[in-house]
């Protein structure tokens, strides 16, 4: 069957390669491969990249999502999945309300821009403040698919949601999904894997171009932290997408930071370092996020923090403001372009102070 397809078209081949690489299970998902011409009823215009064939099976840590037809009514849950959906040209029927970082309605600015561009109506905003899945609100919008690849849903929630519509959960661990995988998974679920791959490559190229334009970042060590707990520094592990993004910009995680990780194998994406131990941190750049300038001021007002070489010498790149924090914390194909023009100069300025 695979050989039969290979001769069809280059687009199909590219999509197929991505698909098989992604689907892990390989052949089990392959029947969905883009034999556009052979499936009747599909748009076959060569000018528009053809959509994938359905059904599609997307495996996850919690179970498979079998999507029988190209979904029209899409619900997203968890962090930033709506970004990839919108970037692929689909306006979800419902997505989480983001009180932190969103506008008055709870929509991130980059999402609002894209919804406007697509000319869609603002989706139903799901209650997300409690962190519990609002099953009733989701039933109400009659979804074809529920996309939660960057979320923390439990096995029980997965089972319950699966009775409403196929659920795409996280591939391995909760709250851990590189933006590259996110757009690929969502592209597959929406039958738009070719566009997803193109989008991913375009975004990666953009990041790479910024890295090339800012050689000062190359090889600079950093610590990515937050001050969400009293007298504790929350340090993000290398596996977290926000940390990986700095890696893509050419920077490296400070080895001194990794040495402070008491339990590197722990499941969480961050760990705590007491303010008593910040003297042991050696990093060219300290990257921290703060919801407001007030919070940032309070952080540097602490006598132990203000004595840190990073803070003293301004080798410190504070990410200030809720939307900016969300864009950099959960980078996606939509939020990366939104924030990097502001983020990179700030990083470069801090890195430049680290000396030659």
């Amino acid at each position, binding site marked *: 069957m695979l050989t039969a397809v290979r001769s069809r078209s280059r687009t199909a081949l590219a999509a197929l390669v991505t698909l098989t690489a992604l689907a892990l299970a390989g052949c089990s998902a392959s029947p969905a491969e883009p034999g556009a011409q052979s499936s009747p009823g599909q748009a076959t215009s060569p000018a528009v990249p053809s959509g994938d064939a359905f059904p599609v099976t997307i495996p996850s840590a919690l179970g498979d999502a079998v999507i029988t037809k190209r979904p029209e009514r899409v619900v997203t849950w968890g962090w930033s999945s709506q970004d990839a959906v919108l970037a692929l040209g689909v306006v979800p029927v419902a997505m989480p309300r983001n*009180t*932190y970082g969103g506008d008055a309605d709870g929509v991130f600015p980059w999402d609002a821009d894209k919804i406007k561009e697509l000319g869609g109506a603002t989706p139903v905003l799901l209650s997300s*403040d*409690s962190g519990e899945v609002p099953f009733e609100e989701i039933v109400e919008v009659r979804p074809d698919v529920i996309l939660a690849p960057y979320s923390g849903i439990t096995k029980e929630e997965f089972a319950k949601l699966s009775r409403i519509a196929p659920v795409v959960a996280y591939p391995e661990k909760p709250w851990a999904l590189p933006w590259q995988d996110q757009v690929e998974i969502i592209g597959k679920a929406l039958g738009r894997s070719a566009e997803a791959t193109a989008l991913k490559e375009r975004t990666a190229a953009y990041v790479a171009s910024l890295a090339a334009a800012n050689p000062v970042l190359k090889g600079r060590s950093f610590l990515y932290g937050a001050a*969400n*707990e*009293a*007298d*504790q520094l929350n340090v993000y592990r290398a596996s977290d997408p926000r940390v990986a993004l700095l890696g893509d910009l050419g920077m490296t995680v400070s080895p001194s930071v990794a040495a402070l990780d*008491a339990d590197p194998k722990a499941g969480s994406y961050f760990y*705590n370092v*007491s*303010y*008593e*131990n*910040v*003297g*042991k941190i050696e990093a060219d750049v300290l990257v921290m996020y703060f919801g407001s300038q*007030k919070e940032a001021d*309070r952080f540097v007002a*602490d*006598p*132990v923090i203000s*004595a840190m070489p990073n803070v003293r010498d301004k080798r410190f790149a504070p990410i200030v403001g809720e939307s900016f924090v969300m864009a950099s914390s959960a980078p996606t194909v939509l939020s990366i372009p939104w924030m990097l023009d502001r983020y990179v100069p700030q990083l470069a300025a801090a890195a430049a102070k680290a000396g030659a």
Partner: protein
Amino acid sequence: MPVLSAPRDARGPSVSAGPASRRRTGPLVAGLLLLAVALVAVCAFSLAVGANALPPRTVWQALTHYDPADPHHLVIVEKRLPRTLVGVVAGLGLAVAGVVVQGLTRNPMADPGLLGVSSGASLAVVVAVSVLGVQDGGRIWFAFAGAAVVTAFVYGVAGAGRRGGAGPVTLVLAGAAVTAALTSLVTAVLLTDRSALDQMRFWQVGALAARGFPVLWQTLPGVAAGLVLAVAVSRPLNGLALGEDTARGLGQRVGLTRALATLTVVLLCGSATAAAGPVAFAGLIVAHISRGLAGPDHRWMVPYAALSGPILLIGCDVLGRIVARPGELQVGVVVAAVGAPLLIALVRPRGRGRR
């Protein structure tokens, strides 16, 4: 009110006697000295123990030859020292407030939060954080104001239409009712405002970390004033322990004593709560310990509590730093874990010996 009047009136303390009441003064003074030594030892531990294992020599140097450029010295002087001192002030405030509130209500189960101090402080802080967006520097004043207003309210309700001000039973009942109502309000606000919950979590459990010198300076005047008042009312409280009528018969101004004692509790517990969070339970335990050690005379119970309170609070704080390495447990959690068995042990052997 057979339950609420303390089981000690049969052997109540002498009201008129001089310094050597029933117990001899010598052992009591020796006990105080021992407690003082223990307090110094606990404080030394608190300065020596932390997430960063620093040698005692460095700790000593930081205290004697402070060098702000040395990150280790900074940790000790800017983190461990204020934390320890806030522990002293808050522990003292809660414990002495516990003694006074138990004398005031003649109820050995009263904790300093009973008059609405803790719940009033909590509600004020929640409103400050959630509605007004106050950051932690201003929180302390809201906590204090909330404690004062609510306690005044409780006192007013309890004393309404009663000669001699609020009586012990009505005070307890009014305090419990108001506390229940305010606690549910606090919960309602926190459940609907996640960001406020995040900010409140740390204060509400009760913690000494991240308080710093500013909090110490804000707390100190209230606790100092409260301590002076506590010493002043300790003698009239002895009279109150004999019962209202007896006290009045002895020429005491019962209403004035009660009002002053209430003010004492607000000053002490309000300041301590503002600094360390609602850990009034510590006050209940220490009041019992002090009564066990010093006997029923408030003039001795107050200094005993003033020394034992900080020992308990700082001791629990140090324990919380050791057991949960490399993180730490907040002091409110440790006080609850250590205090509950301690209290049971204290209360249990009642039948064998009189206190």
